[in-house]
């Protein structure tokens, strides 16, 4: 049986189709296992070999990788949710209701999206804490820490913009709390220190730009939707690319 299986494996891995897709044979030899890492665009994020210590989970706790995984999961569930959601204040709330009542697995995808978002915020924080505790931001990795802080901020803003989309009381007022803070921004907020002195009013300050108006309304919903589903994920993906690339360039700090 084992032999037959081996035969089937070798045959499949030897076909023109397999070779055209994977650019390497079945990964059961060292040479092919190295080729997997070279020739797969996603696995290519890794080096071919790592020190034995890298297998020690208690150094990284997999936190960076898990954060990235949550991001992927959020993108997949998010795309699914986008099929059923229209950022219109007259129907957004009902679209979310429909997820629970008329759409197969709608609730499951919404719940997964929400929990993955919570998990991502937490894992970003824990990842940063781990990196601090192992001193992994020290030279030559200073800049990658900075990129990480930017990703941390992007994660929080991504999560916050998503908070408004269900258009329920929770969403409206949580975002209202945030917009009150924006109004109080020094220099560029109408209620902040030196804001009025510099000519900022409710209809031209930073909160107005954020909300697309003086209160949380249709323009705000559209802005947050576009930021949440398009602009911020793209920016985050860009910074992630830099983040991962720099890990490879700067090398691992620990036993990895």
């Amino acid at each position, binding site marked *: 049986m084992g032999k037959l299986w081996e035969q089937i494996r070798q045959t499949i891995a030897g076909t023109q189709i397999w070779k055209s897709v994977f650019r390497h044979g079945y*990964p059961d030899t*060292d040479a092919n*296992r190295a080729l*997997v*890492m070279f020739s797969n665009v996603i*696995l290519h994020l*890794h080096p071919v*070999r*790592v*020190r*034995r210590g*890298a297998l020690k989970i208690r150094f990284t706790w*997999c936190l960076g*990788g*898990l954060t990235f*995984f949550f991001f992927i*999961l959020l993108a997949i569930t998010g795309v699914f949710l986008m099929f059923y959601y229209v950022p219109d204040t007259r129907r957004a*709330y009902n679209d979310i*209701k429909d997820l*629970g009542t008329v759409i197969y697995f709608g*609730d*499951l995808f919404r*719940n997964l999206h*929400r*929990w993955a978002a919570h*998990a991502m915020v937490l894992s970003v924080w824990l990842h*940063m804490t781990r990196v*601090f*505790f*192992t*001193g992994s*931001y*020290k030279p030559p*990795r200073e800049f990658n*820490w*900075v990129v990480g*802080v930017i990703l941390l901020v992007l994660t*929080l803003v991504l*999560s916050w913009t998503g*908070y408004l989309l*269900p*258009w*329920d*009381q*929770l*969403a409206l*007022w*949580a975002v209202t*709390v*945030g917009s009150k*803070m*924006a109004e*109080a*921004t020094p220099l560029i907020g109408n*209620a*902040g*220190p030196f804001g009025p002195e510099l000519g900022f009013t409710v209809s031209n300050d930073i909160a107005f730009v954020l909300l697309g108006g003086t209160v949380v309304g249709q323009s705000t919903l559209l802005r947050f939707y576009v930021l949440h589903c398009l602009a911020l994920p793209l920016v985050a993906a860009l910074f992630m690319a830099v983040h991962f690339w720099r890990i490879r360039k700067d090398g*691992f*700090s620990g*036993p990895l």
Partner: protein
Amino acid sequence: MEAKVATQAGDLKSRIKKAAAENMVPEDTVLVWPNLVYIELISMLFATAVLLFLSLASPAPLEEIASKDTTPNPTKAPWYFLGLQELLVFFDPWLAGVVLPSLIIVGLIAIPYIDYNPRGKGYYSFSERKFAMWGFSFGLALWYILIFIGVWFRGLDWSWYWPWDDWSHHQPASAVKLVDLEVLLQGWLGLSDAPLISIGTYNFSVANLITWAIFFGYYGLGFTIPFLFLRDFYKKLGFIRYNITMFLFLSMVGVPLKMAVRLLADIKYVLITPWFKI
């Protein structure tokens, strides 16, 4: 000097750890496929299982449709911002919602550039970087404690509720009357509130000037004491790094200090200016 340093137990430990961390002989490496990739796969499957469980056990909430006519009490920001919202009890919105978070971000970005200590890189170590570890853990603890309070101890009117309190009833209005430090000083020292100096339309009383002195005295003393008595610390950091480090550190410590002043002495503002209040 060299011998003295070498005899320190911590240093020896550090060298051993460093040697272990840098022990990258080629024969001690393994192929990423399958060794590391499988660990990643398992952790992803595990995370998916946890998320699926949470999704089924605790579904996403959906309240009434958004309405400007009914303001929920209390209105809470998402949990990860509740630490900042909790700060609103103690600080004005421009400080709690904008300046302090900005300082946190700037401070985090600055960390690798102000931490000169080359030790403790690539392994967990507390003893070799006590100041960095204490400082970071302090900020972290503050962040999580404030979130904890915001999520589990704040109810109607943002009042304090214990888990066993009745959360559907308003807490009795506090008998405590908050006063500004300036007013307290006037009472204690018998100062008049007549202006001593006027700049434009703004007047500064004696008590007000004392509060300016106290506020800047906090930073002044904070900058001066380590400069005078921890010369080694200052010299290693250098002028620019020292000042940035101390500003960020004193601002971070200042947050719970202001909270303590408010809670213990019922002081609302420690510094009042015509443009902002702290």
